[in-house]
Each structure stands twice: as structure tokens, then as C-alpha cells.
């Protein structure tokens, strides 16, 4: 903190003890400072006070004048001269609390034995501490049909609800997805959804987590375990670059659920549904368990580890080799790949960007991103946020929650430069700068920002030439901070680890001889390769032209890139050593396949978009799978060199010893945008992004989760729809020379030249079906 905030302190007496708290603090929170626990259900520190459950009644007296009746301590802020008596010192407060508890339990069913919340239920616990031991109620309890699905992944049991409104307040205030509300009045009051709109929020899992009873439960965790069965491990989310703190609950070596952890500086207490409910890929039946080696007949057969390692080493040594590491490796694993490329393969041909990327992006990352530290706190203090090639709700949901918090609190101005107005930006009431796909650069340059502004740049900014050049120039001219927010959790870590052709670990430029000496000394190597390495696309092309003969591939989907055909051909042609958890397009074409540990089975860390380390330990301890780092060390030994990275801890230590680079950074070249293509009649320019819930590899087998994915549609503008005679729901066939997809039309706010479709959703896998994702001209026909 650079500035000290001056706050008025108010002193109150609670149960005879004096406590000083900042002005505006609620009584219940002041009592917590003293360690006095007042029972509560509706109160939540991150939600607005509501006083719905009445469980936290206390006696309050201000300057000698007492309130006539007990008051809800969760809605009353402290005042000077206030004397509070809680249930511990006031008989009246204690009786009032007991009475409220008795009323809450009147209609609460006695189904604790079958309730998922049983054993970790605030109502159970507080009924024990505050309730009566015997019921006096002899009537018939109110019943409802139970349970009902309010979405494919959330179940609602209305009998259990104590009407605390935590779920509805979360949905309205934090997620801005007001799909659930309290209906009816009196004894029949109940949480409900509009019958035509299920609870399709990307954040619905948080409502389940903060429900103080078992009224909202998750469909995938239903009846799976009790709290005492579970071994909990603090962990970090591997799904996106937001960097959520998580808790992984494991029963007998199997992950049963994941909960949002509490980290005030990152995810507060929230996470998204993908982070919470997409973990079955780890226990999928098709996990690789044994090394596979291609035999003389050309078949992949199971082999022993020594055999497989020897085959891998031999193949990598025999030809010039390159390394492709997907964006999902941990920081330590990426460092292992980076060091392996330089030491064992003597090449800078390594790239973590297994997606559409550009040389402009590589320059931008080296010049502006590596080593930088824009944080969530900067968003909290920004006067304006500019989104470039970035959809926060779909691509980094916690960034969206933070923007939304600031928007609700102080109407933070958000501007997006995009072709299509998204639901997320609409919720933020963002300014929509409408541009044709591929023409974003000019609009970026035209933005007026200040030194307190932030430019959030997504990985899709690399898909239009000139955009990142314009972003860098805008930052230089206005002083606005840049934050690069990739979609995948490992990309920032891989960048810092030098898993890219123009950088060594610690942001040291390959072209700088002092930087090379720096790292060579650390590694005990005589010298390091000095030519700038190739990018992913160039590596595939070099394989196809014969310049590269072998590939080391870890966690890559070749169809994520701009040229899938070329990638598959290269994998077919080269000698491929693949480190993977499950069979994929790469393993089927590989010559040696080595199974590796999934995130839950190993320790390590991810660097989130801020560059903040998110450390985690292995949640499943009895796994036989080894980390990528361990296997790379073994291959290196087999090749006759040593990485000296026997464990994750030693890798982390070595990374920490590198330190920041104080030499000159890579200078960014100027790239200019391309001309807008000429369009006529049925021609459109394609634009797209990946949705949070789609066909991603890590969401395999999560049917409940997939049920809340947004509808797959093709979006066109009202004027083009009118001229083509298209209305909502009509089928549109979008085609390129490679293929076509047919989707239902949705007429929405989008640039007239553009057509939008989800990039990797069911029925719309653009990179596979069309071979294009953004900026390409497509033909659209109504059918």
C-alpha cells in the first residue's frame, strides 16, 4: 500500500469488552474482532446486509437508551457510545435467538441423514449451540416436491431453505445473473426460477457453497461423501489464468469436489463453475497408465519405462528437435521444458502458444508482459478499463467478477473493442466500440486513457495484425498499464520460464549475449544457442519441410492452432515424444508416449495473469504418475546430459534464484493492420471466441456442467438479417473452402460485416470445421 487510508475509529462495548473498529463496521463483525461468535445464516461479509434470517439478534443500547427489542446485529453499524449484549451476557438476546431457531426449524425437514450438507451444516451446528434439544412443534411440516433441478448442475430442496437470500443476493450482486429470486410470501415463500430460464449462471456453484443449509446442492456431488470421508488439500485452479485459490476434496484417491478458497487479493471467496465442477478428466477411464513405444511394425505398444526413455532419448538425439509445450504446464514443468530445449536439444525452438499466435505477440510478450505486474488491485483502483481481444466473463471469469464489483461499487467505466457485444460486457454496462474483425488496431489507437487506466489484453489480440503494436503505443502515450490475460493457466508461467523462442527464463532476451551468459552460468553450461527460436506454426512448417526431424510435445492439442492440417502432418512425419495424461491427436501420432501426472497428482505452481505464484500440493498422494519435470530429467539423463532438476522444489528454488532482468528488454517492432477485405452479398468476416463452458479437453465427462453451457448460435446484425431475410432461430450455413457449420441464427448487436459463432462448442468447432476463427472471409447462406 502506497497511501495510508485515514479511517474514523469507533469504540463500542460488546459483552463488557471494549473494541475499536472503523466507522461503518457492522455489530456482528465488531463482535468477531473480540472472538464473540453471534449465530447467523444470512450474513456474509461480501454480500450486502439484508437481515433476513433474524438469527443474530442482540441487545443494543446507545448512550444509555436501549432499543426496545433485540436487533439484528448483521444490519446495524457501530455507533459511538454503543453497548451491545450478545447471547452470552443478555438473557433477552439468548431467548430471542433460541426463539428464532425454533421458528426456523418448524418447517425444516428432519432429513439430515440424507442431506449432502449434513456434517458441515451451519443450521445443524447452530441448532446444537443455540437451539432446544426437544421440539415442541406437533403440527404437520410444510412440504414441497424435492429436489428440483434449477439447472442441470444445481438442485433445489425448498423444504430445507431458511430464506436467508444468500443465493439470490450472490446472483444479483456478485455475478449479475439474477436468475433466481424469492417467490411467494409467508410460509410458502421459496427460492425459484422463472420457468423458462433455468439458473444458467457461470457462477452458480458459489450459491451452492454459501447456502447455509442443504437447500442448494450440486448434482455431481449428490450423495457422494460426508465431510469426514474427505481429505482436503488447498490447491490452485488449473482451468484459467485467473488463479483462483481452491480446495480439493479427495476420497480414496478420487477427487469428489472442489470448492472456492478464500483469497481476498485474488478470487475473494468465489470461483466459476468450470473450476468447481470440471475435474473428472483426471479420473477418466482412458488415462494413459504405461509408456507406449511404436514398434517396427508401426504399432504403439506398451513398454517399460527404461525402454521408453531410451527410445525417446535416441529419437531426440538422432535429428534436430523442437519443443512444443501447451499452455497448461505448471511454472516448474514449463521451466523444465525450457531448460531441456536449451541444454539437451541445444535449440531455442520452443513455444508454449499452442493456439493462434503471431510474431507480433511474441515481441509484445517479451517487450511488455514478461516480468510485469499489473494486479487485481490495479483494477480496483483504475479509472477506466479497456478490453482488447478479451471477454472477461468467458475467458477469465474472476477478472469479470472484479470488474463487476467495481462497476457496482463506483460505476467503473469499461470499454471493449470488439465486433460483437457480449453478455458479460452488457452486464458491466460497458462502452461497445464496434469494429470489423481484423480492424481493431485503429480503434485501440483512438482511445483516450489516463495513467490510472488499465488495458486488459486477451490472447485473441494476436489474431488481428497491428493490435498489440497499437496497445503498446497507447500505453506509451497515456501511461496506462497493460495486463495480458491469456486463457490458459500455464501461459504466464511458461512465458516467465522462457518456453518461447525469443526469451530465456526470467525474461532474459535470447538475442542478448549477457543474458545468455547469465543463464548459462546458472545452468553450468558452456554456452546457450543464440538464434531466435521458431514459433509453433514455424516449427510445424519446419518439420514438414524437413528442417526439424523430432518433436517433444507436452499437453498440446494440434487442432487449437491456426493450421491444424499442417500440425497433424508434422506430427505424422516427425519423431514425436509425447508427454500426456490421456490419448489425444498427438499420442496417436507419437513414437514414444510417456504418461504424466495430472495437476491433482503433483505439486507445483501456476503464475496467474498478474504473475502471482499460485502454489499447490498434490491432492492425491498415492498416484504413481510422475510430473513432466521428473520425466524430462530422466530423458535428459538418458541423453547424457543433466537438468539438475530432480524435484519440483529444486526447480522452484532454481527459478527463484534467477531474479529479475535489469538489462535491455526486447524492442517491439511496428506491425501494421491488414486491409479490410471487400465483401459482397453473402460474404461475412468470421469472428469468435471460446466460451467458458464448451468442448474443452478438461471438461470431458462433465455432463451436468455442460448442461449450463450457453446455446450455440451464429450471431448476425439486424440490418444484415433484414437484407438476408433471417430471423432468430433460422439455420445459417457458414462455409469456407475447408468445410462448413450450420447454426441457428441470433440477431444481436454485432458489426454489419461480421458473423460470430462460438469457437469450440458443440456443433461449432470452427478451427476444425472451417479452419478459421477470426478475420477470415466466410460465405453465409440461409437454409
Amino acid at each position, binding site marked *: 500500500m502506497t497511501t495510508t487510508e485515514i479511517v474514523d475509529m469507533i469504540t463500542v462495548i460488546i459483552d463488557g469488552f471494549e473494541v475499536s473498529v472503523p466507522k461503518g463496521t457492522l455489530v456482528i463483525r465488531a463482535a468477531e474482532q473480540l472472538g464473540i461468535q453471534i449465530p447467523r445464516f444470512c450474513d456474509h461479509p461480501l454480500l450486502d446486509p439484508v437481515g433476513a434470517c433474524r438469527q443474530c439478534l442482540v441487545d443494543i443500547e446507545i448512550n444509555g437508551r436501549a432499543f426496545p427489542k433485540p436487533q439484528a446485529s448483521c444490519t446495524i453499524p457501530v455507533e459511538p457510545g454503543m453497548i451491545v449484549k450478545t447471547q452470552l451476557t443478555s438473557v433477552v438476546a439468548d431467548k430471542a435467538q433460541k426463539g428464532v431457531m425454533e421458528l426456523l426449524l418448524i418447517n425444516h425437514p428432519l432429513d439430515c*441423514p*440424507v442431506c449432502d450438507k*449434513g*456434517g458441515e451444516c451451519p443450521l445443524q451446528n447452530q441448532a446444537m449451540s443455540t437451539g432446544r434439544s426437544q421440539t415442541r412443534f406437533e403440527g404437520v411440516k410444510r412440504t414441497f416436491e*424435492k*429436489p428440483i433441478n434449477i439447472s442441470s448442475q444445481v438442485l433445489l430442496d425448498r423444504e430445507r431453505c431458511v430464506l436467508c437470500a444468500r443465493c439470490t443476493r450472490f446472483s444479483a450482486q456478485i455475478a449479475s445473473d439474477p436468475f433466481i429470486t424469492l417467490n411467494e410470501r409467508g410460509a410458502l415463500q421459496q427460492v425459484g426460477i422463472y420457468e423458462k430460464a433455468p439458473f444458467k449462471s457461470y457462477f452458480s456453484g458459489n450459491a451452492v457453497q454459501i447456502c447455509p443449509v442443504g437447500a442448494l446442492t450440486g448434482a455431481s456431488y*449428490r*450423495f*457422494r*461423501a*460426508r465431510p*469426514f*470421508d474427505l481429505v482436503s488439500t488447498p490447491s490452485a485452479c488449473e482451468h484459467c489464468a485467473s488463479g483462483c485459490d481452491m480446495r480439493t476434496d479427495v476420497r480414496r484417491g478420487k477427487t469428489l469436489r472442489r470448492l472456492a478458497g478464500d483469497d481476498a487479493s485474488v478470487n475473494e471467496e468465489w470461483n466459476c463453475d468450470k473450476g468447481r465442477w470440471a475435474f473428472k478428466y483426471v479420473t477418466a477411464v482412458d488415462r494413459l497408465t504405461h509408456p507406449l513405444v511404436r514398434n517396427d511394425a508401426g504399432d504403439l505398444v506398451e513398454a517399460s519405462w527404461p525402454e521408453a526413455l531410451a527410445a525417446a532419448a535416441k529419437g531426440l538425439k538422432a535429428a534436430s528437435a523442437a519443443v512444443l509445450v501447451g499452455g497448461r504446464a505448471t511454472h516448474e514443468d514449463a521451466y523444465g521444458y525450457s531448460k531441456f530445449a536449451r541444454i539437451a536439444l541445444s535449440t531455442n525452438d520452443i513455444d508454449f502458444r499452442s493456439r493462434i499466435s503471431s510474431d507480433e505477440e511474441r515481441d509484445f510478450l517479451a517487450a511488455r508482459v514478461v516480468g510485469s505486474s499489473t494486479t487485481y488491485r490495479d483494477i480496483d483502483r483504475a479509472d477506466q478499463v479497456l478490453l482488447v481481444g478479451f471477454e472477461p466473463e468467458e475467458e477469465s471469469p474472476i477478472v469479470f467478477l472484479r470488474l463487476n464489483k467495481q462497476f457496482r461499487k463506483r460505476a467503473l467505466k469499461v470499454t471493449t473493442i470488439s465486433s460483437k457485444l457480449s453478455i458479460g460486457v452488457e452486464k458491466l454496462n460497458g462502452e461497445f466500440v464496434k469494429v470489423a474483425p481484423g480492424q481493431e488496431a485503429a480503434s485501440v489507437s483512438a482511445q483516450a486513457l489516463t495513467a490510472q487506466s488499465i488495458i486488459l489484453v486477451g490472447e485473441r489480440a494476436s489474431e488481428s495484425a497491428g493490435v498489440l503494436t497499437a496497445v503498446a503505443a497507447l500505453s506509451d502515450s497515456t501511461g496506462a498499464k497493460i495486463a495480458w490475460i491469456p486463457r490458459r493457466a500455464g501461459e504466464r508461467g511458461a512465458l516467465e520460464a522462457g518456453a518461447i523462442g525469443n526469451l530465456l527464463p526470467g525474461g532474459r532476451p535470447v538475442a542478448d549475449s549477457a543474458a545468455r551468459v547469465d543463464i548459462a552460468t546458472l545452468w553450468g553450461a558452456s554456452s546457450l544457442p543464440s538464434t531466435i527460436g521458431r514459433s509453433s506454426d514455424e516449427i510445424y512448417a519446419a518439420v514438414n519441410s524437413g528442417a526439424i526431424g523430432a518433436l517433444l510435445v507436452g499437453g498440446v492439442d494440434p487442432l487449437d492452432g491456426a493450421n491444424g492440417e499442417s500440425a497433424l502432418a508434422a506430427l505424422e512425419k516427425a519423431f514425436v515424444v509425447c508427454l500426456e495424461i490421456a490419448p489425444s491427436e498427438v499420442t496417436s501420432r507419437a513414437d514414444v508416449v510417456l504418461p504424466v501426472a495430472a495437476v491433482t497428482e503433483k505439486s507445483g505452481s501456476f503464475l496467474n495473469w498478474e504473475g502471482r505464484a499460485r502454489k499447490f500440493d498434490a491432492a492425491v498422494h498415492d498416484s504413481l504418475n510422475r510430473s513432466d519435470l521428473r520425466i524430462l530429467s530422466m530423458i535428459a539423463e538418458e541423453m547424457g546430459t543433466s537438468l539438475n532438476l530432480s524435484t519440483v522444489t529444486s526447480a522452484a528454488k532454481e527459478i527463484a534464484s534467477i531474479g529479475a532482468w535489469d538489462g535491455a528488454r526486447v524492442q517491439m517492432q511496428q506491425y501494421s493492420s491488414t486491409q479490410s477485405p471487400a465483401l459482397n452479398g453473402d460474404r461475412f468476416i468470421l469472428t469468435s471466441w471460446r466460451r467458458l463452458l464448451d468442448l474443452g479437453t478438461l471438461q470431458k465427462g462433465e455432463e451436468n456442467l455442460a448442461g449450463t453451457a450457453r446455446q450455440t448460435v451464429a450471431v448476425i446484425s439486424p440490418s444484415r438479417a433484414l437484407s438476408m431475410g433471417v430471423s432468430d432461430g433460422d439455420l445459417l450455413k457458414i462455409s469456407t473452402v475447408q468445410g462448413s457449420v450450420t447454426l441457428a441464427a441470433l440477431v444481436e448487436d454485432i458489426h454489419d460485416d461480421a458473423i460470430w459463432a462460438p469457437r469450440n462448442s458443440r456443433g461449432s468447432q470452427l478451427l476444425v470445421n472451417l479452419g478459421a476463427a477470426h478475420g477470415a472471409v466466410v460465405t453465409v447462406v440461409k437454409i
Partner: protein
Amino acid sequence: MSEIESFKNNDVDIKKVEFSQVDQPGSAGFYGQAKGFWVTFSKIFKKTLTVEYPEVKAPTQERFHGRHQLNRHPDGLEKCIGCELCAWACPADAIYVEGADNTEENRMSPGERYGKVYQINYLRCVFCGLCIEACPTRALTMTNEYELADDSREKLIFEKEDLLGPLRAGMLMPPHPMYPDMNDTNYYKGEVTQAHPSQDVNK
């Protein structure tokens, strides 16, 4: 563990322990020996208490804690709801339960939930009966069966099918639907006394 280690660390040397002389009683005199043998001799004329086990098996006390049984409702549905309270109560961690969802096609018990996996490890069980006290549906009780010896560890982990009570007259093998117009509360109140013909889905 730590106690053993600290003991080792103290470096106890057996040679340094001091021994002291203790007075031992000598052999009994004639009177003493005769008194002892008289007890043996007099038993010859009394009723025999030992039985020729295993040819003869004496009945246990009625409330003897023997092997567990998972009971059924009178129509054959299982009483176990998979709540794991038995496992929670078990001081020896001998019980493993996994619950699952009852569906219309696959109903094993009345209500929402049934015990999909139910294991008792008789190498661990101390027959204290706390699980029986914990069971909210009287699904788990103990029988008087005490012959629980076997030659492998695996055989002494009893699965659900080993523990389930037999199908008696009027019972149907689950899965089958609940008795018409009855809900789980009616079942717990004992208002279902036998299976209804409509429950027999195999008929």
C-alpha cells in the same frame, strides 16, 4: 511412535539396570496340594459346562453382538439410506459406505438415497454396537452369529450382499417401486406391511 523414539534416545543399557533380590514362595505343602486337587475332583460330580464345539453349538445371549445385518422393509426395499452415520460413529473405522440416488427405474430404498456400497471390515470391527445406535432407520442391526473366522483379509471385508437380510414372505427383491400411495414416512412408520402386486416389476 514418539514415545518409542524418546525411549531409544535415552540410551538405556540393560547392563546398567540394577537387580534386586525378591523372596519367592517355596513349593506348597501336602495340605496345600490336596486343597487344590479337591477342587478338580469335586467338579467330576457336577453338571458339565463345556460343549463339543463345533459339533455342538450353545446359543448365545439374546443381545449378543454378532455379525451385522442390513434389514429390509416388509416389501423388500432396503432400509439403508447410505447416510454413513454408522461409518461416522464407528470407533474402529471398520465401515465404508457410498450413497447414491434412487431413481424411478432403480429404486433400492424408499426416499431419495440408498447405500450403493456398504462394507464392514471384520478385521477391524470391535462389535461395540455404536453403529447400531447411530442408524437412523434401524437398517443396521446385529445378529447373534459369531463364527467370523476366515483365511484371508479380503474374505473378512463383508460386502452389501453378504450383510443384507434374507427375503422373507411378502418381500420382493429390489429394485422395485414403492408401495402405491405410500412415501418414505409411511415406510418408517411401519405402515407398509408387505409388497403390493403392482410392485412386482418382473411379473
